[in-house]
């Protein structure tokens, strides 16, 4: 088939994959801090993009200002989700808490529909619309922005976890919340921080992808599910796994859409998910789940 298009597919796969990786990281942060799957993650993505659109278009703020403001807003929303419904919940059962995030997701989507309507919204591309040609692949400046910012975020996260006291405290809470409490780490504060960071990751992903694909109030669902699939592909809860899983998912999806059938583009991500669950459920980079007795 059209093998000469391969570089193009890889570029678009890596672009989408970086966005999936950011979303997967959001899942991963909350999973590690609380053991919950946050179904509102996709709505963080939508909110980030929509808030940036409003700030840029309605308020006329410059993109470099609207961008960080939107990220901070969604971080606050993430923290409110934890401070509010999740902390108020009288039943600490994991299933109930996960269902609370489902409820939150529907509420956020509903709010999105009320505020921004049902139409498609756009942001301008960061670096203009003139593609750069490299090795037969046309690369949009936006793609470079996405890759660059993703790399930056990853490095920052790595430094945070490895070299800062707060990051280490957060890993301690994930590893053993009881032990962490005993040595004076506030588990609550760490969990709130995890939700805030996860909201920021989602918002970032949303703002980065909107100039390429647009955004509407319900688009968060599919993006969130793909990020989730990426996180499982890499090994649920593993930070490097989330990144590699997200990237791999993006590439596989682009290749599947390009070489097999673009009609089934969205299905490939989930076929890969099923395959990995059947063959290597711990994910590509996750540790085998320890059997507890």
């Amino acid at each position, binding site marked *: 088939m059209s093998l000469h298009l391969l570089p193009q597919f890889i570029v678009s796969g890596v672009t989408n994959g970086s966005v999936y990786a950011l979303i997967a990281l959001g899942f991963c942060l909350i999973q590690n801090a609380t053991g919950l799957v946050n179904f509102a993650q996709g709505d963080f993505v939508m909110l980030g993009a929509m808030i940036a659109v409003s700030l840029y278009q309605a308020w006329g703020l410059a993109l470099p200002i609207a961008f960080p403001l939107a990220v901070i807003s969604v971080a606050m929303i993430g923290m409110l989700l934890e401070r509010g419904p999740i902390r108020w919940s*009288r039943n600490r059962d994991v299933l109930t808490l996960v269902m609370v995030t489902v*409820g939150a997701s529907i*509420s956020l989507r509903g709010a999105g529909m009320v505020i921004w309507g049902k139409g498609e919204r756009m942001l301008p591309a960061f670096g203009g619309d003139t593609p750069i040609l490299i090795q037969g692949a046309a690369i949009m400046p936006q793609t470079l922005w996405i890759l660059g910012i993703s790399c930056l975020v990853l490095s920052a996260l790595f430094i945070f976890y490895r070299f800062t006291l707060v990051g280490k405290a957060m890993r301690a809470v994930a590893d053993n919340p009881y032990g962490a409490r005993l040595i004076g780490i506030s588990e609550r504060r760490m969990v709130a921080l995890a939700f805030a960071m996860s909201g920021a990751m989602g918002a970032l992903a949303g703002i980065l992808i909107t100039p390429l694909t647009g955004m509407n109030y319900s688009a968060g669902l599919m993006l969130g599910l793909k990020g989730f699939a990426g996180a499982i592909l890499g090994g649920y809860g593993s930070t490097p796994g989330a990144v590699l899983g997200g990237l791999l998912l993006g590439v596989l999806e682009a290749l599947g859409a390009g070489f097999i059938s673009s009609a*089934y583009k969205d299905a490939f991500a989930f076929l890969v998910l099923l395959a990995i669950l059947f063959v290597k459920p711990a994910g590509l980079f996750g540790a085998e789940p320890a059997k507890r007795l």
Partner: protein
Amino acid sequence: MNAQRPDPLPHQGPAPGPSPGEAPAPNPPPRLRPQSRHALAVLALILLALPYALGNDYLLLLFNIIALNALVVLGLNLLIGCAGQISLGHAAFYGLGAYLGAIAGSTWGWPLPAALLFALMLTGLIGWLLAVPTLRLEGHYLVMATLGFNIIVTIAINQLEPFTGGPSGLAGIAPLQAGGFLIDSDRRFYFFIWGLFLVLFAATLNLTDSRVGRALQAIHDNELAAGAMGVACHRYKVRVFVLSTLYAALAGFCYAHYVSFISPKTFDIFYSVQVVTMVVIGGMGNLWGGLVGAALITALPELLHRFEDLHVLIYGLILTGALVFVPRGLVPSGLALLRRLRDAAAATPATDAADAPGVAAAWAPPAIEPAPAAALPDSLGSPGTVLEPLLTIHNLSKHFGGLQAIHQVSMTVASGEMVALIGPNGAGKTTLLNIISGLIEPSAGRLRFRGTRLEGLRPHAIAALGIGRTFQAVQHFRHLNVLGNLLLGYHTRGRAGFLGCAWRSPAARREARRIAAQARAELRRVGLEGTAEHSVDQLSLVQQKVLEIARTLALEPALLLLDEPVAGLNPRESEQLMEWIGQLRAAGLGIVLVEHDMNMVMRYADRVVVLQHGAKIADGPPRLIQRDPKVIAAYLGTGAPGEVPLEP
């Protein structure tokens, strides 16, 4: 002779037990519990009167959709509430039932029953293929698999236009008919679908209150202990998942033939989330709650329609609020509230205090007639004959990564012999028990139980062979009462399956009656008679331990593995419990006892095996072990043979 325990029918009463004549004659279990029967009758009457009271056919349409959703929720509730597994893909099974039935019936022109059978069988098969690999894993992998599956099915329905009509849907599906009678109006469908629902609802209520329902509940509460009671956990989980997909497919089939037009939008992930919400809102594991949840959540968007664009937001907020503030579900919380109000109205302060005791009262050890024949394995003579090994362990090793937990341990246990397994903390005692009972695969070595190899067998199969075990921390099923916990011990001695339990076949009823009588007799014999209907938490520790052992004895084991049975008990209770365990040994059971209480070990054990760092360092009668310098060193860390720390 093979250790397989065949049909337990000609059984002589519970292991060392009283004569069957002593057992009370419990009432034969009726087709349906009286309370459920009354509630169902009321529900049926209301439903019957409703169409005449309403007069508005739009509302009938709403009620029909409620019935369809309630049908999906019924199966899903069984899966979530009883077996503790979540599916976020039931919209896909609902859709498969609808599309497969419609394609077979309308496009290919198959007769209705054939189309129904085709839709059910194919959906069930797909569900089975999805469940077998994912349910083998611990954790919530089923959620992710079903979620992915749902999205794939929605996309496939959209894309397979020649079959499904694609996004624009499939129209012109003929209405259902039964023997020439067309179900083509809202009113006719109303009676049909609610009749169908009530029948399946009654059957499912039966199922939850049966051998199978108990096993499912046990899997949810404590999978580990359920396996040790001989419950084939994986098989049950797969079956209940497939059953729930069949309910969904049946509902989908009826839906397609009712509305005569189906499109992919109906079967997307949002519907899956909705049905799970119905279960959670109503009350997980409470079938009545599922019905209430289905009615509320189905009606809610209708009620919210006049808010137009706000309706999604309001829906989400109501959902979140209900989950946050009424997390147990509306029906269980409502019932609890009613009970509290009733108690507050009826109770004088005095009864409150007088109610609780009597439960945690002192426990007296059961009187055991020495050596009743029933406890003896057929292959062995009386306890006086030569002891031939029941369990043989040869060169067993287990390592976790680099850690050598068990290193080339060999030992035997004979019928009527109590072997104590001792050793410092971390010596590998519990690991050894876990290997024998199949929870952990050995890395190397052989295990033979009456000639049958145990390596590679699942815990439930090992339990069924006749190896019972208790756990270091007492393991119970918290959603089952004391009698229910004990009844679970008889799981391997029942035969009734899903169908038998759901329809209460005569054989299933006879079996339930026989086992309930045995369990009650056993409960009386071990001195827990008055507590049958109590929750296990209300028992004292010693009573809980007795219950756990009684439950394990109900398996009719030939070998009993006891992990620190007297830990946490006071001296008198320990004495009584060990006295009872000693009598079980005298009755012919082989016993492996892991225990830290040296007094007990030295007094009761026939032989002592000492482990240190996973290796066996001594094996012999208690007298010799007490003087073994290696053992003393292991316990004290020094080699001063003059001091004898193990002297009782």
